[in-house]
C-alpha cells in the first residue's frame, strides 16, 4: 500500500543542509495498522506529510498503492489526496466558518460527486462517529473530542484506502482520547489501512506494528542502543 525505499528529504537554507529523512525505508501492507513513533524532531511528521503527498521529497522512491508518485504534478497529487487518503490532524483542522455537515462535505465536493450520494455519505460518516445530530453545529460549539470525531468523519466520508493520523489524540483528554482510539480500531477492523504518528507509547501499543524513527531513519528497536534512552525519555514526558 505504502512503500518508501531509500527516500530522503533535505531542507536547504542559505547556510546548512538538514536531512529530515535519510535513506528512509518503510513498507506498509494493505489493511495494516501501523504506529510511527519517535522523539520530537526525529522526522515523523515529515514522513507523514510526504506520505500524504502534502510535500515532495528529495531522493529515493515512494510507491503509493502501487504507483510511483515522485513525478506527479500538483493536480495529480491533489486528486490522489482527495480520493485515496484520509487525514486526521492533531489540531482537527476543521474549517471554523463551516458547520459540521459542510466540513465533512469538503473532500466530496472536490470529487465532483452528485448531491444525493454526497448527502448519504456525509450522514453515514457522521452516524458512524455518533454525531449525526450535530450536523448543523459549528466546530466552535463542539468539544475537542467531538471535533476530532468530525475530522474522522471527514476522513472517512470519501472511503479512502489509506488513513493518515498525526497525533490524533494529542489535543484531547484521556477519556476523549480513548473514544477516538476505539473508533480508529473499529475502522481498521473494517479493512482500512491506517498509519498513525504518535509519541505516546500507550497509543502505539494498540497498533499492529510499530515503526520507530530516530534522526530521520527507521531503526530496529532491539538493535539500536540509542532508542532505549530516547524512547524512555519521551515516554516519561508524555506520562508526566
Amino acid at each position, binding site marked *: 500500500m505504502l512503500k518508501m525505499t531509500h527516500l530522503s528529504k533535505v531542507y536547504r537554507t542559505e547556510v546548512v543542509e538538514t536531512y529530515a529523512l535519510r535513506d528512509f525505508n518503510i513498507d506498509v501492507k494493505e489493511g495494516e495498522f501501523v504506529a510511527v513513533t519517535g522523539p520530537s524532531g526525529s522526522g515523523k511528521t515529515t514522513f507523514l506529510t510526504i506520505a500524504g503527498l*502534502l510535500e515532495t521529497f528529495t531522493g529515493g522512491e515512494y510507491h503509493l498503492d502501487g504507483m510511483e508518485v515522485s513525478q506527479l504534478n500538483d493536480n495529480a497529487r*491533489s486528486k490522489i489526496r482527495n480520493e485515496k487518503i484520509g*487525514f486526521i490532524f*492533531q489540531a482537527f*483542522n476543521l*474549517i471554523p*466558518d463551516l458547520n459540521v455537515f459542510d466540513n465533512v462535505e469538503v473532500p466530496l*465536493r*472536490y470529487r465532483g460527486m452528485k448531491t444525493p450520494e454526497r448527502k448519504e455519505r456525509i450522514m453515514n460518516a457522521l452516524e458512524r462517529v455518533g454525531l449525526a445530530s450535530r450536523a448543523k453545529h459549528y466546530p466552535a460549539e463542539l468539544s475537542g473530542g467531538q471535533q476530532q470525531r468530525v475530522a474522522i468523519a471527514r476522513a472517512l466520508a470519501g472511503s479512502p484506502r489509506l488513513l493518515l493520523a498525526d497525533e490524533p489524540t494529542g489535543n484531547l483528554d484521556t477519556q476523549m482520547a480513548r473514544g477516538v482510539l476505539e473508533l480508529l480500531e473499529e475502522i481498521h477492523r473494517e479493512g482500512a489501512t491506517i498509519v498513525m504518528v504518535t509519541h505516546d507509547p500507550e497509543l502505539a501499543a494498540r497498533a499492529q506494528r510499530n515503526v520507530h524513527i530516530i534522526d530521520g531513519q527507521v531503526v530496529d528497536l532491539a538493535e539500536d542502543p540509542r532508542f532505549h534512552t530516547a524512547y524512555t525519555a519521551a515516554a516519561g514526558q508524555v506520562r508526566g
Partner: protein
Amino acid sequence: MFNYYLQLGLHSLKRNPALTALMVMAIAFGVSASMVTYSVFRAVSGDPIPEKSSQLFVPLIDSWGPQQNDHGEPPGALNYVDAMALMRAHQSSRMTLIYSLMLSALPHDANSVPSQATGYAVTGDFFPMFDVPFLYGSAWSNADDDSRAADVVISDSFNQRMFGGANSVGREITLSGHDYRVVGITGHWNPSPRFYAVWGESGFGDPPDFFLLLNRALDLKIDNTGRNSCRGHLTFRSWDEWLQSNCIWLMPWVELNTSADVARYRQFIEGYAADQQRAGRYGWAPNVRLDDVPQWLEKQHVIPEESRISLVVALCFLVICLVNTIGLLLAKFMRRAGEIGVRRALGATRHEIYSQYLVEAGSVGLAGGIVGLLLTAAGMSGVGLLFEPEIARLAHLDISLVALTVAVAVVATVVAAVYPAWRAAQVQPAWQLKSN
C-alpha cells in the same frame, strides 16, 4: 462547482460584514462615478448619423488667408460668395447650405402673443442627405429651390403647437410676418450632437421647429442668428454689402458616396480655390478641407471639456477603488490561509482554490454593481447639478447602462482579485500540518 464556490463566497462575505461592506461600497462608488460621467460622455460623443457619417462632408475653403486664418486652418464655414459658387457648380450628388433662424410664429387670434420658433434655412437636399424622417408630406424638390418657393418643413412638435398635431401639409403658416406653405412634417429627429450645425453652437440645444427654403430666406433678408465671423475692416452697411463681405456664416455639406467621388470633389474645390487666386480674389495658394462627420466633430471640439475631464477623473477614482479592493481581498483571503491549507490537504487543486476565490470576488463585484446601480440612478437625478442643463438632460439610465454598470463592477472586481486569489492558491497544503 460554481454553485459551491458561490455558496462559500456568500458565506464568507457574511462572516466579515464590515470588510464586505467596505469593499462593496468602494466598488459601488467607483463604478457609479464612472457610469454617471460615462453616461454624459456617451451622450455627447456618439456618432449622430452612423449609417452615413463617412459619406457626408464639410467642404471648406480658406477665404481669410495665412495671416488671418486659425493657425493655418481654413475658417469653419463659407462666405456667401464661395457658398453660392459651390452650389451652382453641382459637383456632388447632393449639397446643402445651412444657417440658423429665429422667427416669430404669428398667432391666429388677435389677442394672443407671438411665440418664438427656431430653425434653419436649408436646401431641399438637406432632408434626403441626413435621412430626415417624415410624418406627413415630404421635402421640397430641387425645382422648388430654383423657383425660390415659399416652402417650409416643420417638426412634429411645432406642428403640435401650431396645428394641434393634425396633418397640416398644404396649410399656410406665418413666420415673422411672411407666409409660407407647409410641405412636410418631420418625425422626431434630433441627432445628438447636431452635427450639421455645430459650428458656433454647442450641438445639444433644443431641436429646431422648422426648415425654411434657403433661397426664399435669402430673398426675404431673414437674418442669420447663428455665428458670423469676419476679418479685416468691417465696411458693410447693409444686407447686400454683408453678403459680399469676407464674413463666414453658411455651413456647407455635401454627400459623396464613393472614395472616387471624394477625390474628385477635393480636386474640384482645390481647382475652385486656384481659380479665385488667379482671378485675384484670394492672394494665397489653395487651402481647402473636406472633413467627414467624425473629423468635423473632432475639429469642432463638440465633446465638452468638462465631460472629458470628469470621465478621466472618475476612471482614476475607479482605479483607486480597485487598488483598495485588491488590498482588502488580499487581507480577507490570506486571513483564511489555514482553511486553504486544509482544503488543499483534502484534495483541492490550486485551480479549484483559485476559482473559489475568483467567484467570491465576483459576488462582491455583483453586490458592488447592484449598490453602484442605485448610486448611479441617484447620480443621474443629480446630473443636472454637475453639467449644463442641455447636456445633463441627454444623460439617461437605460438597459445598456444598467448592464454595463453591473458588468464593469463584476469584471473590475474579478480583475482586482486575480492577484489575491493567486496568492491564496499558492498556499501549501503542508503548511497547516507543519505549524502544529
